């Protein structure tokens, strides 16, 4: 691809991204496109500063790379640099989607699939505005470094996303339902699932009541638990936030108890789906990392820069949103591991609480938040009426310690819309999930 020079570290990442977007609103075609974009991101490091460039002129990468070399300063000892010494030199070609690439599925088949589902959205008169989308992405990544790394792999997702705005008299409600996979044929036969989702949302519109505010036991669904894991602890495990303040390493010492002993949170880029990152954007191979193991701080997420600064190993979490940006420490697929209970056992001890089934969004700092979409009251160990909740929140560490029940079954979720945001880089596809999680007290508003 390019000729690297001695005296510098450099790498080049190229993405050939094929996408399909088909969108209907109220039965009418809104958008249909399937662009192919080629873009590259180049990095040169001289031991003092990183120099970055992004280009769509993929045919002339050498010129862009030479421009970066000209800005940097030659360093004969660059190979001794602690960051450079950490880089892996993997050489691999990985295509899990040979024979089932969404590039090979005719556009008309994708359109027909979506069209077949659209009438379902209008089966209840309370739906006033319905939107349906088919989305897919097939990205061919190529990564080469001056150390000899040479990696090619394919990332693929496809899915359907429906949103519906409902109204009946003065009552308003908006909901969504989506299904994401990695192969087109996974999107067939979803009629009953879509109907059930619409029935549940219509029931919410008609019957939901305002939740009581205050502190209550809360049960999180796998979706809500996954967001909780991602927001409450995943972002805290991104080591770049430890680089600026030298006291952070002592504050976040591995082995420290940070949560309930039944809580384990893992992170792994090898999970198929939207968080699939077999090699990160610095060429590091994915591996399973525990962030919390049995309530104890067990690890954190790294780029080569953060691993070198904290003298820890690479984890495969240097990721960029696309080839417009440099890789920074990001999550891949983050999940809570399962426990020993079934769902009824999880609910049984709760006299008055709430079950968060689906969510609009979540966020996490010292306080984490989840904005529920579908939520239900729990009364005497049983699910009750649908309830409206603006936001549930809690101090992260207090809440991690208040987890007192997990179901056995774990669900890992993929997405074709939205993604994770971190400063300027949004959205980055990730996966998350977990079992159903019971927290003995959370703030409900």
């Amino acid at each position, binding site marked *: 691809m390019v000729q690297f020079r001695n005296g510098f570290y450099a790498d080049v990442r190229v993405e050939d991204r094929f996408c399909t977007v088909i969108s209907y609103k109220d039965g009418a075609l809104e958008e249909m496109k399937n662009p192919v974009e080629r873009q590259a991101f180049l990095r040169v490091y001289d031991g003092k500063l990183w120099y970055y460039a992004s280009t769509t002129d993929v045919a002339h990468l050498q010129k862009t790379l030479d421009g970066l070399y000209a800005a940097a300063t030659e360093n004969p000892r660059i190979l001794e640099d602690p960051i450079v010494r950490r880089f892996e030199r993997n050489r691999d070609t990985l295509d899990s989607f040979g024979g089932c690439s969404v590039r090979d599925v005719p556009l008309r088949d994708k359109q027909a699939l979506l069209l077949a589902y659209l009438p379902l959205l209008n089966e209840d008169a309370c739906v006033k505005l319905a939107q349906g989308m088919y989305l897919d992405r097939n990205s061919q990544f190529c990564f080469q470094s001056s150390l000899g790394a040479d990696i090619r792999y394919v990332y693929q997702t496809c899915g359907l996303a429906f949103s519906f705005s409902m109204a009946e008299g003065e009552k308003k409600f908006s909901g969504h339902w989506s299904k994401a996979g990695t192969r087109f044929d996974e999107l067939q036969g979803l009629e009953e699932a879509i109907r059930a989702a619409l029935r549940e949302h219509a029931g919410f519109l008609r019957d939901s009541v305002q939740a009581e505010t205050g502190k209550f036991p809360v049960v999180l669904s796998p979706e809500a638990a996954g967001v909780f894991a991602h927001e409450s602890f995943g972002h805290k495990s991104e080591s*770049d936030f430890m680089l*600026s303040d030298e006291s*952070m390493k002592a504050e976040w010492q591995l082995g420290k108890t940070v949560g309930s002993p039944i809580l384990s949170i893992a992170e792994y880029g090898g999970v198929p789906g939207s968080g699939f990152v077999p090699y990160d954007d610095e060429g590091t191979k994915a591996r399973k990392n525990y962030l919390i193991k049995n309530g104890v701080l067990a690890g954190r997420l790294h780029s080569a820069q953060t691993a070198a600064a904290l003298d820890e190993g690479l984890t495969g979490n240097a990721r960029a949103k696309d080839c417009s940006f440099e890789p920074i420490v990001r999550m891949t697929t983050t999940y809570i591991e399962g426990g020993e209970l079934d769902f009824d056992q999880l609910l049984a001890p709760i006299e008055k609480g709430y079950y968060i089934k689906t969510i609009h969004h979540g966020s996490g700092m010292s306080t984490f938040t989840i904005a529920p979409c579908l939520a239900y009251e729990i009364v005497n160990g049983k699910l009750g009426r649908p309830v409206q909740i603006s936001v549930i929140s809690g101090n992260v560490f207090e809440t991690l310690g208040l987890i007192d029940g997990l179901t056995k079954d774990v669900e890992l979720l993929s997405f074709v819309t939205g993604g994770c945001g971190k400063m300027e880089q949004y959205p980055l596809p990730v996966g998350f999930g977990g079992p159903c999680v019971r927290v003995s007290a959370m703030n409900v508003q």
Partner: protein
Amino acid sequence: MEKEFIRETKRTITLNVTGGKIDSFREIEKTTGTVRVYENGCIGIAGCLGEPDEAALTEKAKEALAFGVPYPCKLEGALELEEVHDAEILPIADFIPTMQDFLDRLGALCPKFAFSNKIGLEYSRTEYRNSLGRRLVSAGRQFYVSLVAQNRGSGNLFDTFFAWDGDYFNAEELLDEFKKEYDAFFRPVTLEPGRYPVLAVPDQLLYRFGRHFLGDLYAAGASLLSGKLGQPVFSDRLSVKDDRNPATAQTTCFFDAEGCVAPDFRPTVVENGVLKGLMTTKKTAAQYGLPDLGSADAAYDGVPEPGFHKTWVEPTAETLRELVPEKAVFAVVASGGDATPEGHFATPVQMAYLMENGELVGRLPELNISGEFFELFGKDYLGTVHDAPLPGTILSAFMMDVSI
């Protein structure tokens, strides 16, 4: 067949800051091209990354007509207008040393904080042409500081933000204000729960209600505002616009993605409490019989969709002291909140200062704020001040329930 051609260029120079030191330099120049053609009630779109070949894009756009995406052809008429404000803010060669000097001075003033994130320069240029003779050129520039501050030893990802953007760099101005916030950060204060004026960037509240201003949701009857166009629904002191004016929105193009130019470059959504406009495109405006707000947005290869770029709220006060003379909560970071379908809004406030007489008194503990949509922008809306505490900043005040 009618046609639109758009060329956009954006050049960004970004420095990454870690522990108060610059550790990377990124320069990106990105050009995109778009051609939209209209025929028989449909739109055909072609876009490219890189320098556009207009003739080739036009052919592709014609081919895309076969997709049959319905879209009314309502191009804006002849007009030639240029707003070019893209003079260099700082020479690129001086950018790293100038900013490192600024960071060193900031670090000396605020020794208990560790700073990270980005400082950058942006230069953007958009050219729009259509077959009815409209030719528009908008070029802008922006310098921004977006620094995350960690209180050393707190163990937190971040404790507060120091941020500003504008079309110039004045180190003294920024250092002076950041030092005031730094000093207030280390003066912990408390507040009894109750109702207080809450001062915030208006988007922190408006953002969660943005969907109710969408034209299609409004027309479907599923918006909290449905049926209220032209009616007084909020405080008569509240006027909300989408800011495309180069004087205050430095890198926002003064026209929308369909070449619409609003009076004063600010499409009006709410004027003196009356709902005057909804977020529309030419398609949704025509489809639902709504006024065309002129705030369409579009990806370089996408169909126009309703957009909103920078909230502009009419000022009602000259100074912070005039706006909130008594005790007030200044919500600096309020992340993760939302509203119920009926409009009950609540959010935690991760970083807040207590203000009195318009001055920072000290840092409040994490707290929660809440209110109702129509009341927040109605009887509980207290007003808005511009250029405080820093030039270009807009802060609005709302009476809200505060719990700690």
